[in-house]
């Protein structure tokens, strides 16, 4: 492959009121990812370029950006998979701090609101959990908090509802599916988390770098349980308790 034409969104709020794309030429190296190209610019052309990255291994969820308009991890997107005309912009759902860096701190306040893991009472320690029972929660625990799903979600982007967003549905589901957790967060997600605003477009699960089935396995399940609970709370409670008991090996 020849040189890469890399367009990076530059914005310095101390000096300008709007940002613009600036084009750079970057030499292609075999197996290169977009983060390599962006760092080339930072190291060789302009050290003041603001980017976020840490692990360079798709494990920390720092390097989220919109690459050719698609929310992606810079460290996981291979240049040879998208061709040599590349544009990189910051996530649009969050306020821009500088260049590719956005302010994602709103997520911390949402995470504080979601009730934390609350173990069932009276269990003998050390806990026993059947190996099969950890699987369901495990899918959601793969989340690296890149917030790309939040970025792509039109409900979150519009900022007009109280919807927490897909990442936070995954968080709640990870605890609701924990075999020893005593709570059911579905009603909370319905009342406070605005889960009803999600209209199941599944765009979020399409961009998830961890391939979590956000809509199918987290959101729809939580929605259904919330509906069940509202319709017949007692029956639902019994159903849940029972299925739990069977799962826990003593």
């Amino acid at each position: 492959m020849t040189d890469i034409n890399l367009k990076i969104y530059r914005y310095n709020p101390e000096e300008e009121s709007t940002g613009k794309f600036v084009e750079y030429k970057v030499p292609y190296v075999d197996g290169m990812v977009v983060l390599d190209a962006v760092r080339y610019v930072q190291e060789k052309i302009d050290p003041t370029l603001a980017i976020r990255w840490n692990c360079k291994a798709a494990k920390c969820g720092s390097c989220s950006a919109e690459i050719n308009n698609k929310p992606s991890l810079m460290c996981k997107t291979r240049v040879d998979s998208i061709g040599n005309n590349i544009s990189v912009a910051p996530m649009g759902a969050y306020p821009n701090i500088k260049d590719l860096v956005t302010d994602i701190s709103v997520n911390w306040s949402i995470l504080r609101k979601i009730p934390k893991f609350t173990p069932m009472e009276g269990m003998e320690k050390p806990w026993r959990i059947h190996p099969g029972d950890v699987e369901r929660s495990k899918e959601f625990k793969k989340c690296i908090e890149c917030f790309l799903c939040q970025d792509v979600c039109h409900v979150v982007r519009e900022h007009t509802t109280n919807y927490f967003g897909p990442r936070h549905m995954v968080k709640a589901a990870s605890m609701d599916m924990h075999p020893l957790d005593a709570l059911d967060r579905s009603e909370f997600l319905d009342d406070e988390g605005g889960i009803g605003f999600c209209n199941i477009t599944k765009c979020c699960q399409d961009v998830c770098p961890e391939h979590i089935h956000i809509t199918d396995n987290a959101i729809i399940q939580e929605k259904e349980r919330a509906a069940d609970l509202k319709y017949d709370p007692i029956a639902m409670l019994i159903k849940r308790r029972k299925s739990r008991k069977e799962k826990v090996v003593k």
Partner: protein
Amino acid sequence: MEESFKVVKTDVLVIGAGGAGMRASIAVKDAGLDVVMVSKSLLGKAHTVMAEGGIAAALGNVDPQDNWTVHYGDIIEEGVYISNWKMAEICAKEAPDRVFELEDYGALFDRTPDGRILQRAFGAHTYRRLCHVGDRTGLEIIKTLEDQVLHRDIKFFDEMYITKVVVKDGKACGAIGIKMNTGEFHYFEAKSVIIATGGCGRVYKVTSNSWESTGDGLGLAYEAGAVLKDMEMIQFHPTGMVYPPGVKGLLITEAVRGEGGILLNSKGERYMLRYSPQKKELDARDVVARANYKEIQEGRGTEHGGVYLDITSKGADYIKHKLPAMYMQFMEFAGVDITKEKMEVAPTVHYQMGGIRVDAETGHSSLEGLFAAGEVASGLHGANRLGGNSLADILVFGRRAGEGAVAYAKKANETGADKKAIESEIARIRSFLKKDGKNPYEFIDRLTSAMSDHVGIVRTREELEKAITIIEQLKQEYREVGTLGSVRYNHGLLGCLELGNMLIAAEAITRAAIMREESRGAHARIDFPKKDKNWLKNIEISKSDKGMTFNVVPVQEMPAEYKKYAKPEEY
């Protein structure tokens, strides 16, 4: 010029939000004191997130014979007898509690068929001991602790880059930092300060470490006057990726070998049978790393300069279930399907055994009011760290440093902000913002190349001296580095500041490596290939008027009754 800065007052300041920093912060908060936690990266992104294989704790779930004394013996033997015995004892005894505590906090470990926490084999652990969550144990730990931090309402400032620990009357009393997103300077006034900044793998070119692991904590502690030790002990992990170039150094977890992966050279020979007939692929990291290195050096390497790691015999289902992250990593970065093809691997810089010298029980450094925990602290691992012991280390000693800092803070007096010291630090930071400064990344490139080329997996005085020449030259030129732009989210500026710390770490590593004229654990000298009884010692490092000074001290002897837990040392 009068500089403006914000003042934040607290009882205990924790620098770092990896496993050690978060666990320390929880301990302080739970003791009822005020705590502020700061980190260079975003909350939840600390380097700990990368840990893969698991956390070592002698639960005996899989091998019932296991107990703390066996774990203790393993630490001492693999640390080649220069570990701090007390730390080894504490770690071996308390790791199980920290694992169960994680469970209480909501972590979900893989299970045995009868529902207990599953434990896997790892290099040089006598028994199967590593509690794990597939190959994403670090992620589970970070997210679990993050949840606790958020729900406890622990105050944190992320993307806050600390540049200096402030000392008054011989006591640490605060720190100065830049809030990256706003460019505001902050002064944190505290009764005690905990450094939990992780390692310094980034002083090498080829490393498994993340961006933030530039040894900042070593620089902070050294400049403040605290003693460092064992800096020559740098762990090379046997298996880093070699291809494509962008991911060179990226880790392939030891769990691949723990789950049955074997090493082969380009002739198809399983050479570990030659180097270590008993433990084979699961011998200590230094042994396997040097074997890999030797095979490559002697011309039995692969196309891209590695050796092969082969797990295909386990079948696709097993591999995808047990090593999902590794499967994805190779598929997506290298286009290699590890269920069908061999991986190409070579040693990569992974871990610093050395660091800030601390009191075993409290994490107190040699400087009053300054504590340290996690990879930045030293003592537990001696000359070589066992896989899985770092995650145990950060939780066990993170908690203890938190409690130590609490006890100290309760007795300490308020010191007030030292305006002069703060202003002169701000002036130092600003001095890097200039028009014709030299690019810090070029300097970092020269430094990391020098370290990888001359302070590598096998060492000689001649090579080490070459590194010293380069380090000295970079120190001379350091004043000339600089960058355009402002204080706000300026990576160039961070690069300038990190470089200062990297130079301290690199010099300490290299000079200590020159001094230790023997081969022990991770430190292998071609010109002194044998272990030497006279080197049953630790090298301590501190700052003096004359520059970096070194002090060789004998290893603290363990009590007689503990000696039976480890094999006697042989020469």
